[in-house]
């Protein structure tokens, strides 16, 4: 089973990100589970969401305390206590940041990839929503399911021009990250 924890701020589409990632896995025939950490969400407040992906039906419903991967939608949260807590040995951190991956890795002390997700989204969607770009990068780096599955998952939510722009964003984000770099960790 793969367990992912998503950290962001209210308004960044954290729960949607969790639902999209789980739905992408579902599109590829995997079992999935996604849920928020159930805060009384407010715009700007730290929000956590969880995703589980497995070949078998998922039983446990507790929060993800020892994630295989972290997706951080707001790099400022890296300085909040507890955000990287519990990350499994060999696990990776994907961060929304315009900085170089090595720079951010020096702060996290863990394998880290940085992606300017907000900027990409602002350029392509016209809104700095980092979630779809990060998910495209995440699937590209880990190979958990093909990145096309994310497009399919988005197809349940959007259509027309919005869907087209999101597909462009997926391609742009996927091109910026090393494909398959964390494949081993994702299939361990």
């Amino acid at each position, binding site marked *: 089973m793969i367990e992912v924890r998503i950290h962001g701020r209210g308004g960044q589409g954290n*729960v949607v990100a*969790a*639902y999209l990632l*789980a*739905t992408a896995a*579902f*599109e590829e025939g995997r*079992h*999935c*589970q*996604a*849920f*928020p950490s*159930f805060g*009384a969400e407010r715009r700007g407040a730290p929000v956590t969401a969880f995703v589980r992906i497995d070949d078998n*039906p*998922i*039983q*446990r*419903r*507790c*929060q993800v*305390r020892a994630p295989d991967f972290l997706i951080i939608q707001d790099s400022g949260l890296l300085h909040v206590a507890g955000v990287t807590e519990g990350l499994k040995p060999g696990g990776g951190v994907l961060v929304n940041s315009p900085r170089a991956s090595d720079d951010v890795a020096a702060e996290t002390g863990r394998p880290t990839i940085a992606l300017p997700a907000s900027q990409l989204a602002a350029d392509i969607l016209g809104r700095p929503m980092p979630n779809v770009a990060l998910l495209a990068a995440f699937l590209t780096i880990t190979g958990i399911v093909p990145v096309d599955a994310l497009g399919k998952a988005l197809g349940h939510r959007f259509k027309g021009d919005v869907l087209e722009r999101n597909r462009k964003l997926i391609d742009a984000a996927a091109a910026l990250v090393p494909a398959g770099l964390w494949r081993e960790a994702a299939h361990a």
Partner: protein
Amino acid sequence: MLEALEGSQAVARAVAMCRPEVVAAYPITPQTHIVENISKLVADGKLICELVSVESEFSAASVVLGSSAAGARSYTASSSQGILLMTEVLFNIAGLRLPVVLTCANRAVSAPINIWNDHQDSMAVRDAGWIQIHCVDNQEAVDTSIQAFRIAEATELPVMVCMDGFVLTHTLETIEMPDQKLVDKYLPPLNFSRKLDPRAPLSLGTLVGPEHFTEARHSHHAALMKSTAEILAADADWAALTGRSCGGLLTVEGPEDARTAIIIMGSTVCTIREAMSVYPTKRKAKLIKLRTFRPFPAAEIRAACEGCKDVVVLERAISPGAGGILGVEVKAALMGMKRQPVVHEFAVGLGGRDIPLETWPRLMDAVARDGEPSFSILDVELEKLPVEER
């Protein structure tokens, strides 16, 4: 069709497939996405139904009381403080023996203010005279929602479908959604025997003096006790159509000769089920998944606990000043058994506290310790309290 759906959305669609004629709900906190999604289905023309957005849960319950009495298939949903505000009407709906279906997205009750999951709300209306059925996952929530209309209409008793707030309502997971044709086949249109109809007038809810009130209560109790047959039949018929059973009144998983049993209601069943395989303990244990809390299946619980030395009851609500709630009922059910098991009541996950896999070995350690009180809150962190309150 297999879909990845959020629990609330799936339940909304399941309810819509039952073709309710009236849905009334208070749309603000502590409401879930269930009625929001139903209102979307109505707005999109996918569900033809009178949707009444009311100004309070008291009114929501009152509207479905009236519409049900008029013979319309009626549905509402709420949780927590909302259930409590409905309370007076919930007793009336049950006392009038109206086939209303309500989803309770189980949540804690204030104060202190808390919006998260436990079972305090449905426990607070335990004695209202409703059938109460708990779901362990969103598949069961979908299937039970459909079964609930069938049970309510066959028994002329209201049914409360209890599903863990957030843990199920806000979780997206893989769910098999039934086909509309199949639901239509399973659930015929409602033809309520005592509907208020000006062409055949009758009175409902009149004053009943001491000379008949006792008989009314007896009749209500007897109807609840008898409803087990319909709960079982509704599940069996659904299983015959879909291949999915929700487990009737209760189900027992694990080795038959186990000397330890754990009784759980709701989604914690799934976490403990996995924990039992992740943390194999020295003692063999079986899991009793309790689905029906009202009517309380005492005989079935007794049979399931036969041969057990210890029975652990996981409490998701408490009765301050007494202890557990479910545990007391389990103890009563086990009274007089030849070799009566020791019942250990442990409350966990109050107000949304996470229930991790390690809960299982902690429970087994606590059971093994001598001199433990029969009720305690397993995951309380006493160091957070002033010494005099520990």
